[in-house]
């Protein structure tokens, strides 16, 4: 019935072994939503924690689009400053903060690349993803899954996703560039995203 008397070493061993886990939990204790709540109260420590958690991801996405470290840093600084200034634009129900930051970073960088006005106010970006990506480890696992999946797609389908997403080309531009009919471009991009969703949920 009780495991303690039959295993006197258990409690010590367990508590000792569980320490690193507890420490990990402490480290991740503040959920993104709790941090945003604190940012609403102008808590600079909470804002710094959000920054430290996601800065390299946001910077890397912008850098992938712009291929210019200074420009990518500008995008990153601007996005985090917006979170600081108007945290209300990001409230629970808009999906994961990580996903939101990644998409906004890509959109802002593409706007700069294409020299157009910011066409997508942050408050309009809404994500359905419920996946918790606050923990770096989970993010890494997810990225690995997505990368592996994209790598398995036919070469030209990969290229079209990349051109639309990271190069910010329109479907007509992709069609003109690759010689692939417009309808095919649309279908391929759509099916790539659908299969990605399936792969991640699997």
């Amino acid at each position, binding site marked *: 019935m009780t495991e303690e008397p039959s295993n006197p070493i258990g409690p010590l061993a367990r508590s*000792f072994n569980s*320490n690193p886990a*507890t*420490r990990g939990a402490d*480290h991740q204790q503040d959920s993104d939503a709790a941090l945003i709540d604190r940012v609403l109260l102008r808590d*600079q*420590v909470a*804002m*710094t*924690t959000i*920054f430290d958690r996601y*800065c*390299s991801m946001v*910077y*890397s*996405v912008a*850098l*992938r689009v712009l291929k210019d*470290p*200074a420009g990518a*840093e500008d995008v*990153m*600084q601007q996005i*985090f*400053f917006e979170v*600081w200034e108007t945290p209300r634009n990001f409230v629970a129900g808009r*999906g*994961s903060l990580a*996903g939101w930051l*990644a*998409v906004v970073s*890509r*959109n802002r960088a*593409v706007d700069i690349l294409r020299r157009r006005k910011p*066409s*997508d106010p942050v408050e309009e970006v*809404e*994500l*359905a*993803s419920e996946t918790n990506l606050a923990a770096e480890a989970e*993010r890494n696992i*997810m*990225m690995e899954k*997505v*990368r592996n999946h*994209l790598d398995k797609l036919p070469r030209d389908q990969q290229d079209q*996703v990349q051109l*639309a*997403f*990271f190069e*910010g080309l*329109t*479907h007509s531009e992709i069609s003109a560039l690759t010689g692939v009919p417009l309808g095919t471009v*649309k*279908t391929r*991009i*759509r099916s790539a*995203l659908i299969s*990605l969703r399936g792969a*991640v949920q699997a």
Partner: protein
Amino acid sequence: MNNNAHIPKQDLSLYAMQALDASEQAAVKAHLDACEACRAELAAIMGDLALVAMTAEQHPLPEGARQRFLGKIGADRIGAAQAADKKVVSIAVGSSAQKPRPRRAAAWIPWSAAAALLLVAAGLGEKLHLANIELEQQAARITSEAGVNQRAREVLDVLTAPAAQHILLTAGSPRPAPSARAVYIASRGALILQASNLAQIDTGKTYELWVIPANGKGPIPAGLFRPDAAGSASVVLPQIPAGVEAKAFGITIEPASGSSAPTLPIVLAGAAPSAGE
């Protein structure tokens, strides 16, 4: 209303990436404003796009980027403080302006000095504020690590406390043989030895532990110890050089002050497993 014709999902994917042509983009936007079902699908697509975005290879921030951001969010408060300071200064200017006769230069020097001081104070305040943020974060880190340290200390205390009883469990042999167990991390020069059933030695003598280097150089003395009444003893983290790969460990009996080279015979010895084991 164009609710009756939902946007094809292909087009929604492209819309999410702003990859439609401008006129198409506007048409989709108009429909989305009126159609909840399409907005929900768009949100799902945005979730997919977040995953694509995160496939970008990760790079560290440019140097100073973090500090620049901290400066920005700290600057906010400082900006407000400076605005308040300016009010104080402007009252002073106002009061001197009421006097129609120009005052001597010396009269406004204190005010400009005060203004300069306020600016310096604001600058210092900003630095102090940033330092405080760093400090709070460090405090949080220290708290989470303190628990782990506490645990490590307790383990060490149990291993080394004079009151600790060391019991060797064997298969029933009447007189267990002396033995010792060494734990060694060459890269850190960290060594812990636990010995049991050691024979008692004369008061003028001591046991001495030796690290025998793999490179063939002379044995390195790694601590003196005497067994307790039960024959147990330990050596915890003696001062030895780091980075010495050990071939073996040995224990000898030496004069009470220790020796710089081992005196034979070696009473206990053990070979270190080769690296990587």
